[in-house]
């Protein structure tokens, strides 16, 4: 899974530790993605300040069936590269961030998605720190450049892809710029 808390500094760090506690407790019951997201929303709604929220993607990977079942709660969409078509794109899925609706009304915004992988496919999870990295001209790295970078580096190993994308982001923002935000980047390559 991947998650991101809104805000920065002490309050964000505090919310993140609460989030990790909630997530670690919930996975003990091996819930399906929809149940996990709904329960996480109820639990986090009781501890987050009213103007704070958390985004997450929870995935269950079944290596026997070569399938992934997942639910997205307002987090950046999954970037997926298909080895057969050599094409990368974002997987469209509906969802709503955790802590935005703090009652049962949230449940209807949680959806189950499923995908099947083939050898050579690549799945990328990331946080908005990557997308919103800005260069000197205040231009964002953006979704398009990330997609192009994945297609360009697809022949490499998962670790090399991660490293190459990071280098692309740093090259884009330029030597004079610092990353404004923290970022996380996870690359899975299927054999």
């Amino acid at each position, binding site marked *: 899974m991947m998650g991101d808390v809104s805000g920065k500094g002490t309050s964000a760090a505090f919310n993140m530790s609460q989030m990790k506690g909630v997530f670690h407790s919930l996975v003990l019951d091996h819930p399906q993605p929809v149940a996990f997201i709904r329960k996480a929303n109820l639990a986090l709604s009781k501890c987050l300040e009213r103007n704070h929220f958390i985004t997450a993607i929870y995935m269950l990977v079944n290596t026997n069936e070569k399938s992934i079942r997942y639910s997205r709660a307002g987090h950046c969409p999954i970037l997926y590269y298909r080895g057969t078509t050599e094409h990368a794109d974002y997987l469209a899925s509906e969802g709503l961030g955790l802590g*935005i609706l703090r009652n049962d009304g949230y449940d209807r915004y949680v959806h189950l998605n499923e995908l099947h992988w083939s050898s050579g496919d690549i799945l990328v999870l990331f946080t908005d720190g990557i997308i919103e990295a800005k260069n000197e001209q205040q231009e964002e790295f953006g979704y398009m450049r990330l997609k192009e970078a994945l297609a360009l580096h697809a022949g490499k190993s998962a670790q090399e892809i991660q490293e190459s994308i990071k280098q692309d982001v740093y090259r884009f923002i330029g030597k004079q710029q610092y990353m404004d935000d923290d970022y996380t980047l996870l690359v899975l390559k299927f054999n």
Partner: protein
Amino acid sequence: MLAIKEVFHADYVTLQLSGEIDASNSVLLDEAIKQALNGNHERILIDATALTYISSAGLGVFMSYLEVFEEKNIHFALYGLTPTVFQVFQILGLDQLLTITGSAEEALQTS
């Protein structure tokens, strides 16, 4: 840098936003919405035509008023978002809970 201008109409108020909303200035947006609520306006419109960026702190402000708008039966709508700003609302899923339209006319018609 964020600038907020209040434009009062006969039966609604428009908050014109220009610049960027981030953690350092989201409190200004919060105050502007609070003030509009105190003014007992039944309709509050946000003109986001000149809004170039919104961080999670800005989204959090809109989010924190969802219940208040519902309880007080206030028509709240945003219009004129750039595709990049709209995408931020969309990815979080807030576009499902807030009224977001292209123009002020459309935003008024949705009430």
